[in-house]
């Protein structure tokens, strides 16, 4: 793990040596980097199975007879944001805990872009700009002061959304932009909510199923301002937070006896234990102190083979992308041929292999969201397109990239020089010096020294500050965006996108995104998404490398009906149970 100091020595050796070295150094920590940058990658979940020959199937996730009882113990920090109120955190740190105690109007399934009923039993669309939700009857809030178990009304839903979107200096409202198309929301009666949009916005349905849109009672806000503490966390979810919950130690969430989904949740309680390191989490699972814990791919691959304990493992998931944003305000990146060349020089499979040990959920990708086949972009499509990437034709890609540099006038006497910024000094801290050295080396090697990178590693907060202020040339990044496809696409690629810190400004892209947003039919919307992805890859808004950055979860043997695809959509923890 100390190989970064003699990178060039090793780089000059045979290729396999470099690969091995990189596996152990430069990119080992990128999975952890994802966790850290998004504030909580260790708590991000999604679908998937595990790699390698030791992989048990993701079975055990279903089967057996549902049994009531037991305490589900669960580790993890609450991420950088350190509280229970997911509506007040611009990243996804508190999301899983929020799903224990809060439920939203709908649940969103990222895997097929659909929403399912939840607090709302259904909805109708009388026209393109109106959605009428009907509430599930007999839903009650948690029996905690000041709400004291009163019945939910449509007015509570109205309040919930207004709290998220109406200017309020006491709140951060980081998700306000996701509700930008809401014109007004009203409660014509106690069980109906009418939402009127300024213009058709299909992403609003997904937004209503997001974990930050949990039903928020006004009395709790009046008393506590927000939902950050165990005492304040009051909603209609399957578990009730104990008042003693703390970000430093964790706490207990008791079963909500009045939960509106009949017979659920199965567990008597969920015990949340705050752990500071993945190593501790792993050891706690191994010694049967935890039911489920999130650990890094590095830890799993180092330790999995010699630890039995009847554990299952599955990758956690999501659409978190790994990318190299460039600063579009700089002349050197304005030529699309240059950006395409930078993209074509990247061997994405190499990056995925080194970074994630080849986990199947981590995909090489030239655009986000990944999983291109879901957006009706086949492997053949990918190979056919001029911007495409294919592991089997790397050399052709490099050749094409060099031709692009030729045509853009980039030569050895007129090289493309830029500073590449990353953070974290130690490999386990992410995109620090070793990763920067890797990119410096591959660009030098593959471009015949025409792309010359100056690595610039720094501490995390400094890096983030420079990124936000657009004071960078290029940087290595991972960032969570939320799950709704429009959020993912728009935040990075729309000119006003919240994560578009490279200031990419493409009117055609903006038009495509706005069009996609206005389509409610899933199949039609997929086609619109495909068009955006093609545009992203063609114009190289940023140099995308991979998506679905993973950590692993390890689970003790008797847990049933859990699924590794969770908070990418709805956590569904009320459906988990222990085998009798």
């Amino acid at each position: 793990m100390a190989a970064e100091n003699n990178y060039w020595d090793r780089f000059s050796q045979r290729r396999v040596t470099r690969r091995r070295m990189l596996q152990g150094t430069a990119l080992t920590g990128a999975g952890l980097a994802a966790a850290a940058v998004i504030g909580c990658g260790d708590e991000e979940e999604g679908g998937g199975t595990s790699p390698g020959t030791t992989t048990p199937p993701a079975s055990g996730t279903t089967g057996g007879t549902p049994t009531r009882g037991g305490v589900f113990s669960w580790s993890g920090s609450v991420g950088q944001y350190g509280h229970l109120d997911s509506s007040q955190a611009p990243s996804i740190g508190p999301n899983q805990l929020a799903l224990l105690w809060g439920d939203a109007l709908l649940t969103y399934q990222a895997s097929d872009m659909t929403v399912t009923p939840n607090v709302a039993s259904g909805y109708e669309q009388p026209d393109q700009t109106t959605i009428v939700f009907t509430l599930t009857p007999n839903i009650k809030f948690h029996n905690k002061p000041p709400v004291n178990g009163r019945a939910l009304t449509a007015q509570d839903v109205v309040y919930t959304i207004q709290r998220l979107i109406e200017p309020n200096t006491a709140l951060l409202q980081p998700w306000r932009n996701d509700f930008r198309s809401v014109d007004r929301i009203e409660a014509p009666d106690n069980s109906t909510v009418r939402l009127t949009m300024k213009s058709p916005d299909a992403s609003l349905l997904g937004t209503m199923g997001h974990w930050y849109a949990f039903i928020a009672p006004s009395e709790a806000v009046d008393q506590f301002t927000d939902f950050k503490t165990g005492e304040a966390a009051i909603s209609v979810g399957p578990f009730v937070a104990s008042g003693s919950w703390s970000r430093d130690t964790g706490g207990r969430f008791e079963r909500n006896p009045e939960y509106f989904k009949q017979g659920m949740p199965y567990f008597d309680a969920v015990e949340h234990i705050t752990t500071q390191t993945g190593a501790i989490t792993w050891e706690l699972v191994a010694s049967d102190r935890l039911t489920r814990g999130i650990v890094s791919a590095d830890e799993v691959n180092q330790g999995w083979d010699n630890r039995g304990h009847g554990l299952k493992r599955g990758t956690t998931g999501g659409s978190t992308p790994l990318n190299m944003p460039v600063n579009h305000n700089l002349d050197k990146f304005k030529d699309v041929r240059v950006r395409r060349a930078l993209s074509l020089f990247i061997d994405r499979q190499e990056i995925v292999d080194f970074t994630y040990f080849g986990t199947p959920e981590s995909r090489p990708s030239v655009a986000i969201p990944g999983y291109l086949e879901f957006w009706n972009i086949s492997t053949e499509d990918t190979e056919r397109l001029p911007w495409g990437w294919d592991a089997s034709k790397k050399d052709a890609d490099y050749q094409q990239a060099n031709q692009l540099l030729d045509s853009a006038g980039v030569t050895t006497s007129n090289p493309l020089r830029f500073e590449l910024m990353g953070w974290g000094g130690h490999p386990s801290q992410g995109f620090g010096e070793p990763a920067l050295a890797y990119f410096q080396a591959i660009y030098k090697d593959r471009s015949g020294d025409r792309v010359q990178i100056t690595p610039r590693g720094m501490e995390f907060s400094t890096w983030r500050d420079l990124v936000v202020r657009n004071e960078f040339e290029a940087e290595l990044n991972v960032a969570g965006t939320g799950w709704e496809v429009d959020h993912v696409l728009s935040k990075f690629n729309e000119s006003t996108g919240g994560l578009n810190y490279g200031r990419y400004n493409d009117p055609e892209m903006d038009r495509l995104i706005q069009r996609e947003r206005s389509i409610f039919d899933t199949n039609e919307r997929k086609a619109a998404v495909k068009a955006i992805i093609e545009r992203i890859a063609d114009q190289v808004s940023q140099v995308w490398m991979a998506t679905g950055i993973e950590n692993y979860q390890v689970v003790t043997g008797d847990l049933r009906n859990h699924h590794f695809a969770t908070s990418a959509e709805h956590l569904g923890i009320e459906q988990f149970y222990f085998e009798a």
Partner: protein
Amino acid sequence: MGAYIYRRLLGSLLGLFLTTIVVFALLRFLPGDVVTHLLYGNNDPAAAEALRDKLGLNKSFLEAYISWFSGLLQGDLGESLFYGDSVSSIVKERLPVTLELTLIALFVSILVAFPIGIISAVTQGSITDYLFRGFAILFVSVPFFWVALLIVVVPARMIGWSPPVGFKYIWDDPVQNISVLIIPAVLLGISLSGRTIRMLRTQMLEVLRLDYVRTARAKGLKERTIVIRHALRNALIPVVTIIGLEFAFLMGGTIIVEAIFGIPGMGLLVFDALNLRDYNVVMGALVVFAAILIAVNFVVDISYGFLNPRLRT
């Protein structure tokens, strides 16, 4: 003696004041601020500026320092820029944890160091002495965080046991609290005892060779009385200094052990707050640290004065 205490007190307060200025300045010169974390993903410079105004981050250094310091004089450490909680309440929760860990570790350190140091001195040159000196060197040389990791990892892999986690405050669950703290505290204590053992042994050897000890032996006093009552007391002055320094080291140096064992103490608080550029929390915590360190030094200075009247002038 009164003038001596007065001078020391004045010096301590001046030290504390200067510490606040230096730390405040250093924090302000760090690139980045808490707003970039709070609003990450919201690429709106106007919103960021509004939040900076709200949090008082647009004030000049002098204005900000005066505002913060006047709050401090009234016992108000401000609010966490990131969490919005009162810094006093955060410190109030975290400080007892680190203090408890520190005191247990210090107690263990003394418990281990005193018998070993004394026995090693009185049995100079024997196998016992060599053995104990070996222990002392081992305690000083082996990094405690490495041992801590071994304690966490090895038993879990070999016998499926891991140290207790799930920290509870002592007032909530004393048993769980002690069960979580005891292993890291013992580890820290043993690690720290190495230096105390060596210092105590050296001092004891010096004192045991002095004339008054020889006189005591000639008078026929029991060896135990000579060692404990006469020699040990005089050997203690530098040892007290070492213990004072150990306390200071422990108060600020528990971050690694806090991270490994998941103990929510002051070390982790400062580390996290620094990463988030939560100036108020960092300042609040450091002022408390500095005040404790200065108080410990003050007490040590005063104790010197009592132990050695020549130092009072």
